[in-house]
Structures are given as structure tokens and as C-alpha cells.
């Protein structure tokens, strides 16, 4: 038997690290390729000129001031949850319960709006709402963290299940407070008094939301990269044993990080209920708790990249939905297009990390 004949055609080599601009070119190529592939798909399905379709996509986010602000608002909300899950992920704590943590933040907000709406002055009311939404989110995240730190339970399942518990409690709450009776819908809370509503700035509905998320972005960036806490998080993430060896209290770091992570999720719930919808349903978070995980990973846990990735994802989603409705398709097409684009972008990270080397003259070529 001649062993050397059946060599693979190519093999993968890890890159030592690519110059920043080269890695961005790879990403750009990925985006262009993904647009080409989805263009072919759209052409095959509709016979439309793909360029027109991309114009539709672009217009969905940018054609009017209203659309642009709505896009920014969506970016801010997704970014907020992505920032919230990042400290936990960096620590290799697989928190997939951001949906529930944000939802209980929204629940706490709605609760305060209903019960204290006519009892507290507006400034104090907003402060109470803000703090209680953070507290609620932190509580929802710290329960699995305590179990993980104390008993070594599986945090993935635990945090996931907490989502359903949160959704059921919210269903119950909205049913009890439904208007008209029994409808299961709360409607807009405090419509007449606007008590507990986040104020508009210069008549703009979303500016304050966006500014708050910007502050959070800076906070998370500084917290992760410039503080001792941030350092401890990355050490625990790299190796728990190393962390113990150098005297880090791993349980304490896990619990502390999840308190922060949950509190930030809670703020997202607050921004959605008090600053955006002014109502609460079990779908208020609208899956952002899961999309945020993609954002956090694609941005490699870097808050600044997360701004870019959140923007890209929201823009794609909005555009894809418009393509689907303009050309008479089901929303499933929008999801397919978004999926293709994200697939290419994630794929590009592979080519940034590794290179393909064709196998040639391989006699004894193993090293």
C-alpha cells in the first residue's frame, strides 16, 4: 500500500494573525458574495433585477427620517441586550436567558407604571422604575448563577428555562390587568397621564433610548477592558483553574458578573416598555435575547464591533422584510436572505483565522 497517494487536496493552516485591513477586506468580500448569492436566489424566484431589490433593501432603512430613526432604535435595543450578555459570555457562562431577563425588567417597569403611576412624581417614578427593572433582571440572572457557582448546575438549560417562567408570569400579569376585561392585552399603560414614560427629547421618541444605550456601550467597554473585574472575567473565561491558582474567587466572579449582565438586560426591558411600546406582552423582547448572542459572538465580545454588527443585522432584517413584502413573498424569504448573509459573514471569520493551503509535492510533508 502506498500511503502517500491518498493525501487530501488541501489542508488548513492557522494564521498567525492578519493585518487589520486585510481582515476587513475578507469581511467585505464575504458581504459582497452573500449579496451576490441572495441576488441569484431573488432573481431565480422573482425575475427581478437584483440591483432594484437591493435598492428596496437600502430604502427600508434609509428612505425617510422616520425609517432611519426606527432603525437606530432597533439597533439600540439589540445592542443593549448584546452588551448585557457579553460579560457572561466572555466568562464562558452560556447565558441564553437574556430574553427572560429583559422580559422581567419590562415586567417590573409595567408593574411600577400600573401601581405607582399616580402615586409618585414623574422624576422619582422613573428612577424607581429604572432601579426595579435592573433589580428584576439581575435577580433573574443571578438565580442560575448561584446554582452554577454552588452546585455546578448546567447554566444553559437553567437560563433557557427561566425564559419560559418569565413569559408565563408576564402572560398572567397582562391577563390580570387586561383592558377590556379578559382580553389578555393591557393596551398602552397610562395613556392619558404618560406616567412612567421615558420623556421625548426635542420631540424625538427614541433619542433618549439611544443615548442611554450609548452610555451602556462605553460602560461595558471600559468595564471589560480597563478594570480589574474585566480582567478577572477574562481569566475565569480562559481557565477556571488558572483563576483559582492566582487567587480569584471564581464563584464570586460568576455571581457578580451575572448580576451585572442581568441588570443590563433589565434596562433593555425598561427601555422597551417605558421608552418604546408603553405596553407589555410576552413578546415584548421579540427574540432579541437570542439574536444578541449572535451579535456578541460575531463582534468577538468587543462592544465597539457590536455597534457595527447590531446595525448590520437590524438593517438586514428591515431590508429583508421589505423585500419580502414589496415582491409579494412570505417573511420566510426575509429570513432566508438574512441567513445567507450571516452565514457568509460568520464564514469569513473562518478564513481570517485559517488559510487553505493546496497540497502539493507531499512526500513526507507532515510537520
Amino acid at each position, binding site marked *: 500500500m502506498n500511503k502517500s497517494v491518498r493525501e487530501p487536496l488541501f489542508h488548513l493552516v492557522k494564521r498567525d494573525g492578519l493585518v487589520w485591513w486585510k481582515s476587513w*477586506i475578507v469581511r467585505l468580500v464575504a458581504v*459582497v458574495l452573500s449579496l451576490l448569492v441572495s441576488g441569484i436566489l431573488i432573481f431565480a424566484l422573482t425575475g427581478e433585477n437584483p440591483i432594484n431589490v437591493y435598492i428596496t433593501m437600502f430604502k427600508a432603512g434609509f428612505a*425617510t427620517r422616520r425609517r432611519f430613526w426606527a432603525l437606530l432604535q432597533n439597533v439600540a435595543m439589540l445592542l443593549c441586550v448584546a452588551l448585557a450578555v457579553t460579560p457572561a459570555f466572555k466568562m464562558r457562562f452560556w447565558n441564553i436567558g437574556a430574553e427572560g431577563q429583559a422580559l422581567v425588567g419590562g415586567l417590573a417597569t409595567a408593574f411600577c407604571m400600573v401601581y405607582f403611576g399616580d402615586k409618585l412624581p414623574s422624576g422619582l417614578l422613573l428612577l424607581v422604575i429604572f432601579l426595579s427593572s435592573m433589580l428584576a433582571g439581575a435577580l433573574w440572572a443571578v438565580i442560575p448563577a448561584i446554582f452554577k457557582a454552588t452546585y455546578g448546575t448546567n447554566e444553559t438549560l437553567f437560563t433557557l428555562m427561566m425564559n419560559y417562567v418569565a413569559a408565563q408570569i408576564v*402572560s398572567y400579569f397582562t391577563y390580570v390587568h387586561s383592558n*377590556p*376585561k*379578559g382580553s389578555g392585552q393591557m*393596551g398602552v399603560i397610562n395613556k392619558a397621564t404618560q406616567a412612567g414614560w421615558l420623556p421625548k427629547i426635542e420631540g424625538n421618541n427614541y433619542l433618549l433610548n439611544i443615548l442611554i444605550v450609548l452610555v451602556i456601550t462605553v460602560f461595558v467597554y471600559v468595564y471589560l477592558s480597563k478594570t480589574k473585574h474585566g480582567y478577572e472575567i477574562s481569566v475565569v473565561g480562559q481557565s477556571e483553574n488558572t483563576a483559582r491558582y492566582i487567587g480569584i474567587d471564581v464563584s464570586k466572579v460568576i455571581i457578580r458578573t451575572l448580576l451585572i449582565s442581568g441588570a443590563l438586560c433589565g434596562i433593555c426591558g425598561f427601555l422597551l416598555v417605558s421608552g418604546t411600546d408603553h405596553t407589555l*406582552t410576552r413578546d415584548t423582547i421579540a427574540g432579541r435575547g437570542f439574536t444578541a448572542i449572535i451579535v456578541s459572538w460575531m463582534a468577538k465580545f468587543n462592544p465597539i464591533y457590536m455597534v457595527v454588527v447590531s446595525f448590520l443585522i437590524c438593517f438586514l432584517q428591515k431590508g429583508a422584510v421589505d423585500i419580502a413584502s414589496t415582491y409579494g413573498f*412570505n417573511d420566510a424569504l426575509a429570513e432566508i436572505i438574512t441567513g445567507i448573509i450571516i452565514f457568509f459573514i460568520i464564514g469569513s471569520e473562518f478564513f481570517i483565522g485559517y488559510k487553505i493551503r493546496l497540497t502539493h509535492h507531499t512526500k513526507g510533508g507532515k510537520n
Partner: protein
Amino acid sequence: MKKKVIALVIAGVMALSMAACGGASSSAPAAEEKTEEAAAETEAAEETEAAASDITIGFITLHDENSTYDKNFIDAAIAACEAKGVNYEIKSNIPEDNTCYETAADMADKGYQLVFADSFGHEDFMIQAAEEFPEVEFCHATGTKAHTAGLANFHNAFATIYEGRYLAGVAAGLKLNEMIAAGTITEDQAVMGYVGAYTYAEVISGYTSFYLGAKSVCPSVTMKVKFTGSWYDESLEKEAANTLINQGCVLLSQHADSFGAPTACETAGVPDVSYNGSTVSVAPNTYIVSSRINWQPYFEYLIDCVMNGQAIDTDWTGTIATGSVELLELNDAVAAEGTAAKIEEVKAGLEDGSIKVFDTTTFTVDGAAVDSYMADIDSDEAYTPDTEVIADGAFQESVYRSAPAFDLQIDGIELLDTAF
């Protein structure tokens, strides 16, 4: 060398895509200007009546056509717009939150004359858009707030679907009679099951009229109702249907939007009266009949109003006479003999007023007849009763507002759980 080639290719692609974008974006506004000019010209030509091709109606739906509820609206919207020759846009999967406002406002920005939303929870966000765009009409199905909102451009609509449910109930009662006559069940075993979404007036009105329809032909009938706490949850609806079947219900109906209950009935071989659309495709051996609201007459009415510049009713209620309430596809393989004829007879009675669905002589509450009831028509957070709804020997459903208000719990109907 290779890298240089790649770089050149990339640069080429980028340049091309930029050129493409540039060219297209400069031509798009020109096209818009042209249509604006055209619109201005036609406006000048015929000032009173707008041409159909200038009109665009926006439709907002909660889910897409995979939900029987939304499919019913989408089909009607397309049919009405195509019949009248107006343009339309349908945006599906719009949740009951700020997204609804953004979508409605965006449609108003685009110059649409009328925006319609199909789900109950859209109402507040439609009102928000209506306040901002007084020149655009906003219409909303199943809502309750138009008559108190004080906005000239916000309108509710519903239909007397309780009449359709009553007719479907007659078909159910006849089926029960057939089962009793065949000896399959005794008179006391004539128990129907009903899968409902919430303990909300719309659902209560629906199951009560269905029950009264059955009772009008099968006096011994009783009914059990189980709630799911969701308008659309296939597994919960299936589970609820199975619970009811296990508790001895021999015929089922539902007010929830999935195929859950009809599928469970088909598996168990229990006859089923459906809602919103025929489910004969999934339940050929158990489906009897379905009632539904046909929204096409309402949409055509709206389009006519916009074209002729007429005011739209604040609360529009469709009836059997307007073609808004229908029975669909009676399945002769399952329905009792003579059902079609009986339904026609009762339908005529409903139309000429000789039969009233909520006739107070046909039901009791806690053993006593109802001669006075204050309902919460102007819904508020405290559910304050504000309007006397018993008049002329019947509960005046859909009279003071288009959305149903009947929320009495009558004798003969047992609620299995009222958590929702």
C-alpha cells in the same frame, strides 16, 4: 501576484456596486416626481372622485397566511382591492407593539389614503398614528375604542359573527340529535366541548351563541369550555381539545386560530364545528361546518368611502345581510340529514328578526332570567359597567359598539378553568 489580482477584482466589484447604487438612486426620485405630477394632473381633472389607481390601501396583519385568522383578512384584502382596482400593500407579522405604529406611520408617509390593522392589540398603536396623521384614515378590526377616542379618522369594525356561530350551533345540535336517535349517546350525554382563547367578551359571546344555536334544536345539550390563554397555540389547543374529549364531550368547536382542535378531533373521531375557515382538509371525517367573518364587504365599503370622499362609520358592523357573516362548506359526509335546509330556515329567521340569538327567554343566569344588565361598553381599566344592554327581550349585541360585549355566564355552560 495573486493578492494583487484579488485586490483588483475587489476594487472593481466595489466600484461597480457604487456606480450601480449611484445610478439607481438618482433615477428613483425622478420616477417618484413623475408619479407625483401624474397624481396632481388627475386631481385637477376630477376633483371630487379619486381615481382607483391613485389609491393605495395599507394592511397590517399580526401573523401571515399560516394563521387562519390572518389568512381570512389577507384573502379578503386582496379580493377587495383587486375588485375595486386600487393598489395595496400588506405587511404581515407585525407585532402588537410600537412596530405597528411605525408601520402605520410609514404607510401614511408614503401617502396611502387608508391603513387597516387586523389584530386586537394593534389598536392603541393605530390610535397613536391616527392622532399624528389626521388626513389619513385608520381602521381597525375587533377593537373597542373608536367610539370613545374622539378621532374623526379612527374607525372600528366587527361583524355579527354570533349569528354565524348560532347557525353553526344549529348544525351541531342536529348532529347531537342524530347521535341520540342512533343510540350512540343518551340525551344527558349530549355534552359539547369548546376550546376558547381568553375569558374575553368576544370569546364568551361566540361560545354562548354557538351553545344557544345547538340548544334551540337539542334542548338537553350542555357544554364545557376550556381556555388556552393564547389566540394561536397549536399544541395548547390540541391538548385542550383532548382534555375535553376525555371528559366525555361528544362534539367540539373552537375559538382559537390554529388547526390544533380540528386535528385532535379527527384523531379521536369526534365531530367538530370549525371557525374562520373550512378545516375539511385536515379533518375530512369529522368536520361539520365552519362560520367566519368575510371581511371583503367591509374592505369594499372602505374603498368606496375613500374614492367618494365619504365619512367612514366609527363602528361598522357587518351582518348576514351585508355578506359579512358566512357559513362555509357544509360537510354532508358528517353533518346530520336535513342540516342545510334547517340552517336556511334559521338564517331567514335571523335576517327578518323573528329569531334573536340572545333572546332572554332562551337562557338563564344562576337559574334566573336576565331582564337588565349593565355592560362595560366604554372599556376602562376598572371595567365600569356603563350601558344597559337588555332591550326588546334580547341582549343588544354589537349595537352600542361593533365589538361583542356579551360576557354573561349562562346556565348549561361549564367553564373548566378560568385562569385566562
